[in-house]
């Protein structure tokens, strides 16, 4: 196709477009969807019996707050990456809450070790974590991908990895509300590990999910 013909076709077919709201505003819409789904899942599975006790425990609240902040920051970064002239610093935004999250879990491991010795660092298989995080993160992930596809796929791998990090962090946030597992090392390996793995896999699929028109993956 000649360029002039392409310009004619694009100009002919182009109607008015609704300008995308800023990423900061869109992220709240996504969060509402994600948290509603997570709440529904927690309700369906049944919250943990000691939830009331946990909700007044500073360590639990800090870990949950860091997971939620990671989800919001990662979703914001993913949305900002699809805006061509967005500032570069957005993509590094999740580093702060994710660092705080991992840091808390790391400190938790040390505390468990100090209190219980080797028993506090016992690692047993807990594959349910991955399944629950993937399940609860699925709808938030789909919603975020639909939102991302309205933008420009400038950094598809980074964008999808950040989106998956956001969705999986929501999954982990919800998981802690019904899954009786608080040993820091277990949470670090099986829960944070599952979040990282999901983000990594999504990153590898980025170019196939988010791509420019007319260009093979």
């Amino acid at each position: 196709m000649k360029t002039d013909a392409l310009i004619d076709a694009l100009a002919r077919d182009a109607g008015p477009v609704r300008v995308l709201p800023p990423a900061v505003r869109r992220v709240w819409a996504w969060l509402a969807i994600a948290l509603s789904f997570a709440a529904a899942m927690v309700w369906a599975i049944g919250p943990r019996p000691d939830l009331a006790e946990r909700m007044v425990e500073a360590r639990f609240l800090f870990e949950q707050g860091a997971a939620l902040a990671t989800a919001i920051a990662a979703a914001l970064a993913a949305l900002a990456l699809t805006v061509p002239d967005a500032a570069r610093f957005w993509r590094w935004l999740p580093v702060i809450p994710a660092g705080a999250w991992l840091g808390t879990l790391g400190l938790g491991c040390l505390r468990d070790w100090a209190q219980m010795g080797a028993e506090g660092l016992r690692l047993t298989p807990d594959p349910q974590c991955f399944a629950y995080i993937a399940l609860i993160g699925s709808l938030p992930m789909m919603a975020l991908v639909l939102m991302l596809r309205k933008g420009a796929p400038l950094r598809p791998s980074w964008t999808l990895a950040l989106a998956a990090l956001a969705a999986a962090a929501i999954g982990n946030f919800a998981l802690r509300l019904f899954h009786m597992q608080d040993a820091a090392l277990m949470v670090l390996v099986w829960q944070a590990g599952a979040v990282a793995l999901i983000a990594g896999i999504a990153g590898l699929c980025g170019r196939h999910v988010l791509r420019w028109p007319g260009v093979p993956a």
Partner: protein
Amino acid sequence: MPPVSGGEGRQLSPDQELKRHDPDMTPTREGDQTRATTQSRHAALDALMRAAQHGDSRAYHTLLQEVADRMRRLVAARAPWLGKADIEDIVQDVLLSLHMARATWDPARPFMPWIAAIARNRLTDHARRYKRRQAFDQAASDLAEVFSTTPGQSHAEGVVNLISVRRAMSDLSPGERRAFSMVRLQEMSLAEAAEKGQTTIGAIKVAVHRASRKLKQAINRDGKESE
């Protein structure tokens, strides 16, 4: 051969390149006047894009034309070895990308940094694909060479191969023969061969690749016949 963008050395952004190659945007002695002209041209682009977002197809047509002209100049200056068809491919990709992403432009912000970010992204994609294609061509030609110089070849096999190659050379089209001779036998670079043959690098590469494949097939065929 340098890539279209990205890679080693200090590289100018498409926006900066655009200014370097756009006569209206080049700083001159009348610097202030030129700056004012540049600003008014950028403001005109902002206005066109704003109108396009509201569904004004004529404004959108003008904008696309303007972007296409600028991209054409930029790519031709940045990658002079590319043929016209390759340049048009890149221009069309940028236009399609602009079209797809036009809802992401915030009318409160300038248009140029926005389109420059898209152009930079598309140029990088093209550079990556170009490098991949080049690597593939190199692998194909290496394969052909490996087939004709396998260790342990007897003198007789070498002679048979030589005869086969000579015979196969006569089966090549004049263009393939000429391209193969320049690049593989005279060891000219693709750019030199393209200049001498008054054609594009892409055409030379395709011709060399086809010729290598035909020669390899001829050697394989003759080898099997002599077994």
